[in-house]
């Protein structure tokens, strides 16, 4: 892809052109794109995720029932536990709420929590990792001991106790508080990865050159080293999003997540499971939120895999 809009004074391009030796510059972004597009599963995952995201974002504009309305038939009776049919594609639950609508709005909850968690982890993990790796010495020791401490807490038991507390402290803002909780517990791995990147990158010549040119620490960290450490950050943040979806679902499954009647996939599956084991036969209450969960997490993980393959130029793409 030759750029035809080169300024007329670009001597090298003109020279190359004259000799018939057009060297086409390939940017990092183009390299990444061509590698990623070749990764078929990851492409598919990206499309599926795009659809799920769009559904969650634009749920308000879709012709859906309100997820917390108890629906009634013409005679004013509540239509509970209807199996899937033309009117209610995913059926209705025991309170007469539309399951399709709840699955879509539940996705909004899950994805909000997960994406916020991913952003928090990326920010905090990068900050801690880069400061520790760049400065070394006692700052490094202190920050890494702290990271180790967070990493060696038993994840689920601590998350449950913390979620139980957050539910009281942040009534009505559970999604945000869950994201803060998961972000706080999950940044450790990324901090370690970023630190390792910084440890090796800070010894490179270009950093020395920047320092010799008088660049200050902050500029070296953010302008020179960080862009080179971006790939593992993106990959890890993606995988954290997958983990956050699972953890959020697990917490709401156990009753420590978003409060009903607000929809959440984990809570819906838990409720459906309880009814199914009780003998209701309402399989749709379990199936649809579960499938939504699996498809979303699977897509995020495939995407993460694809990103890893595409962003790491030392790796050859594994053909699937």
């Amino acid at each position, binding site marked *: 892809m030759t750029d035809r809009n080169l300024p007329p004074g670009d001597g090298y391009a003109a020279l190359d052109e004259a000799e018939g030796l057009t060297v086409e510059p390939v940017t990092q972004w183009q390299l990444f794109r061509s590698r990623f597009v070749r990764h078929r599963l990851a492409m598919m995952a990206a499309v599926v995720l795009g659809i799920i995201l769009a559904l969650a974002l634009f749920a308000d504009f879709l012709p859906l029932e309100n997820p917390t309305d108890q629906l009634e038939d013409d005679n004013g009776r509540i239509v509970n536990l209807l199996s899937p049919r033309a009117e209610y594609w995913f059926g209705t639950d025991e309170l007469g709420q539309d399951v399709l609508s709840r699955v879509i709005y539940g996705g909004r909850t899950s994805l909000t929590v997960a994406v916020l968690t991913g952003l928090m982890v990326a920010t905090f993990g990068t900050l801690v990792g880069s400061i520790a790796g760049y400065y070394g010495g006692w700052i490094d020791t202190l920050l890494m*001991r702290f990271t*180790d*401490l967070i990493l*060696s*807490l*038993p*994840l*689920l*038991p*601590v998350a*449950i*106790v*913390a979620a*139980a*507390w957050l539910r*009281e*402290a942040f009534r009505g803002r559970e999604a945000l508080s869950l994201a803060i909780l998961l972000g706080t517990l999950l940044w450790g791995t990324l901090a370690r990865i970023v630190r390792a990147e910084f440890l090796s990158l800070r010894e490179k010549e270009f950093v020395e050159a920047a320092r010799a040119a008088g660049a200050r620490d902050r500029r070296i960290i953010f302008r020179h080293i960080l862009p080179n450490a971006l790939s593992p950050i993106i990959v890890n943040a993606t995988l954290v999003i*997958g983990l956050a979806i*699972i953890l959020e*679902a*697990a917490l709401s*499954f*156990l*009753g*420590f997540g978003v409060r009903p009647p607000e929809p959440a996939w*984990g809570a819906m*599956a*838990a409720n*459906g*499971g309880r009814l*199914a*084991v009780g*003998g209701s036969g309402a*399989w749709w209450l*379990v199936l649809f939120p*579960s499938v939504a*969960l*699996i498809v979303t*997490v*699977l897509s*995020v*993980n*495939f995407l993460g895999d694809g990103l890893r393959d595409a962003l790491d130029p030392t790796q050859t793409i594994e053909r*699937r």
Partner: protein
Amino acid sequence: MFQYVVRRLVYGLITLLALSIITFTLLQNTGGDPLDRIKSNPRITQQAVQEMAVFYGLDQPITKQYLTWAGNFVQFWNYPTAWGRSFQGPQQVQALVINRLGGTARLMFTALGLAVLIGIPLGIYQAIKQYSFFDQATTTFSFVTFSTPIFVLGLGLQIILALKLEQWTGVKFFYTSGMNSTSYADFSLGEKIGDTLQHLALPAASIALISIAGYSRYQRASMLEVLHSDYLRTAKAKGLSQRTVIVKHALRNALIPVITLISLDIAGVLGGAVITESIFAWPGMGRLYIQAIGQNDWPIVMAVVMLIGVMVVVMNLFADLAYGWLDPRVRYD
């Protein structure tokens, strides 16, 4: 080496201290008085409630309560009073938790045993037959299982293999809740074994499936790395048989990282037991934990969280030591 272990143990103790303070503080602010149930009983007088609060030490400032709890907790040899008393009944926490530990251990060892016996050979075979149909199919299956939350897996097994299967065949293959039937004591030995397995199968399988997915993925990657290494090419070039190359040269080295993974997974599975035990109404530590949080029965919550914390610290250390012991290239500093 000795220094390394000592330092790691000190860090471990600091971690446990931090864990206990964090959990204790969170529990104090979770809302809901531990004595709520007792207070709501109209036959218990205000006076009696006061006395109870004094008896449990709940009238003391929080820091004092914490220090008293911590001081008693570390003296675990004072069985069964060391870990305090449940707010909800006459049980001593230590006796209760250790009693429930048996249930959790039965579930965990079965699941991990299955996962090791199936996951590791699976990963090795996948690596040897890389890109074969078997490899592709099982790797995809692992990836899907790995992305499935354990409660979805548990619910699925419960509904399909227990409820539906019984509806279709009229025979009860598996139970969905509990560790044994209520009439267990009257059973003959054969019936007892059958009953135990019928209860154990589904919760163990749901934990095992996820671990199998994790172990085989890891084992496959580690085996592939070894299979492509130079010393393995040398071994093949010497004319050794395929079998010797794989068993004697490749396998030994490929197992090292997986052993680390498994020791770390034990702690994870123990934490995850909270969910599995809740789904299958399994009388273990995890279910006790959830119930105790619901009732704000914090001596129980603290005891369980600390036990799991100790396991995490011990298994982390074990993983690192095992790694160094098995792989002489690793040095401690």
